[in-house]
């Protein structure tokens, strides 16, 4: 578990890590400043990309990862971006043992997001508070890119 204040501090430190991730197209604070939002390219399929939000779950007192999958197509001569809800996520993502549900209704945007359940987080990440969020990211962001943890090779302060 991680306290909210600690989470917010570590969240800002995560930005430079995400910037070094080759699949990351953009990363910035959410408008309310309580989460990070970003765009992530699919590592192999150019017609897919992810919109991710790393926030805080007050229920579990853990980082909360929600995401949308966007698919690109062509319609009436325009590049059409539309949300994608694959029945079998494992065909698109590195699902591993994550428990993922299409069950998050975004409070502000009123739209549906996939959420990665935070129930096993402390077991996965361990109890040490130092770099908690970085360790969390190394596990949970591999969902989008199995080589995400390679990013840490370029991070100075690990």
């Amino acid at each position, binding site marked *: 578990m991680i306290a909210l204040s600690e989470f917010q501090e570590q969240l800002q430190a995560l930005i430079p890590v995400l910037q*070094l991730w080759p699949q990351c197209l953009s990363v*910035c604070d959410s408008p309310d400043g309580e989460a990070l939002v970003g765009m992530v390219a699919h590592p192999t399929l*150019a017609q897919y990309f992810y919109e991710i939000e790393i926030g805080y779950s007050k229920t579990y007192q853990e980082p909360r990862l929600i995401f949308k999958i966007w698919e*690109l197509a062509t319609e009436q*001569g325009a590049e059409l971006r539309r949300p994608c809800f694959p029945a079998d996520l494992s065909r698109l993502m590195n699902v591993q043992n994550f428990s993922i549900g299409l069950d998050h209704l975004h409070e502000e945007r*009123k739209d*549906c997001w996939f959420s990665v359940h935070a129930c096993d987080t402390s077991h996965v990440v361990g109890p040490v508070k130092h770099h908690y969020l970085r360790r969390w990211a190394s596990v949970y962001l591999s969902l989008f890119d199995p080589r995400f943890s390679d990013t840490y090779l370029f991070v100075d302060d690990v």
Partner: protein
Amino acid sequence: MSDIHLKFVSPCQSFLDTSFFQELARLKLDVLKLDSTTKELTSSIDTSHIPRGSSCAHLFLDSDSFKDRKPREGELLIKGSLHNFNTIEEFKKVDKTKFLRDRADELWKEGTNDPNNCVKFSIISFADLKAFKFFYWVCVPCFQLDSLNPTVEDTGLLPSPSKFNEWFVTHPSCWSCLVTDSGELIEFNKSNSARSSTLCMRDTSSVEMVPSALTKSFVSLLKHFSPDLKKVRLVFIRSGKASSFWVDVDVSSVKGSEKAGLKVSGWERNLQNKLTPRAVDLSSLIDPLHVADQSLDLNLKLMKWRIAPEIDLGIIKSTSVLLLGSGTLGCYVARVLLAWGVRKITFVDNGTVSFSNPVRQPLFTFSSCGKPKAKAAADSLREIFPLVEAEGVELAVPMIGHPITNEAKQIEDYERLLELVKAHDVLFLLMDSRETRWLPTVLGYAEDKIVINAALGFDSYLVMRHGNYKREQKADRLGCYFCQDIVAPSDSLTDRTLDQMCTVTRPGVALMAASQSVELLVSILQHPKRNSGGPDEKVILGDLPHQIRGFLSEFKTLKLRTTAYEHCSACSSTIIEECKSRGWDFVRDALNDYKTVEDLCGLSEVQLKAEEVMNDVLYEWNDDGEDGELL
């Protein structure tokens, strides 16, 4: 140098967030409507968080982009404009080259006054609100003097960009600055240009030693301000470590001035590097309830675009309606209310759905048979539109002239009915007997509610609004359903055959009466004084009649008006005040004996006088016919 010509990266990569389109949809529906004039946008460009996977900074637009806002600390705001078209054909027909040139010409003009104003973006768009699909294309116009062809002479990394970074921190709205010969940083403008041959810019590119295309605009403005300038050092400031750099360029090859024209670029390329518009389909992303909510509003709000711009849909949406009777009329009335956007509808009935009901009563199906009508109707309405606040109340409306059999139960029913009347703005009287309508009519007056009455004959119908009531008002008060009667309503159900007790009508009559009664309510709601206006007033939807009588045998309708009858058994001052002061005691007396009501309101006296007149007439007839033979 492998290439002596400068290469450029796109100034930015746009991402329009879902909330941007939701706000665009809202604005289009509620504010812009058919207005296709340009709308201002504000966004920020984040040069400090460019990830390794992206070649340039992101231009992020969300719902806040429609607001004019102040920059947050360290934020670089960028102004833009939205050109939203009303049809997909208009969007497609836009001459993209001309559009970009026009925007670039505007920026050139603004840039000559203040070079920091030459960085703006524009979006062309079309919002398909029914399909929740949005077509758009973003451009960040960059211009270059036709005659300008800068060639690179030397280039290198900037060892210590900190003084430039600090200057930009203290000048958050500046995109560029000049460096004087003494190393001082000054604002880039026409008058300062003569003092410098070093132009410094914020760079939105992250590609090593390759600046963003905005460079072309700034160099063109510098050349315009200092036409004799031959060599210039360009300094590109980036937030990343050791990535800021400089380039010495020869601009002496310039032959003409700005009159030679501008070369323009700026339409955003897609991920496949093609120049095509983009679209986003949000229909499956939005909560279906939210889509349903917006879609219902959409059909109504389209009225405001062209046909009835002044119609007040908000008052309709916020009106709560009590439907007394959940039969054929109740079901149809509820459907029309729903279509008008009414969100709170309560059904009252004490019956159950019979096997004959579903074919005439559109909220019921075969599986509804045997269920309580009011609850079944409310459930069905919620199935049609889950956001409606529909409730079914099983309740027997106490009927005048039907003596009390179980006082505890009837008091309970009366109090529940009174509570419901108080809790709603409008009552619809949709029952199948006269005596059931009496108490709600009186309570409607006592609680100052709008009351709409609809009644059916075999091939005729009556739709009316009850007049308003003020104790002191005598003249010009509109009447109620009972104002033309000289007897109080009483038990009309006992000792009747089935065809006399059931509503036997041509099936289409109920639809006509139901739709007209709701339309009458909508018209009332459009009047600034609601039901308190004069008798013959008009509203933006047209006439505001008191009564509509329809005759299907002749396919004819009449608009009628009757004034309130001073001895009316339901709306006369005596009755309303008696109900207000004595409550259930008054109602109990009326139920046990309708004659008490006639005595109170003066109808007994009227009847007595009428009898005397009749006797006189008969007497005269007898006198006249003394010698004749009655055939």
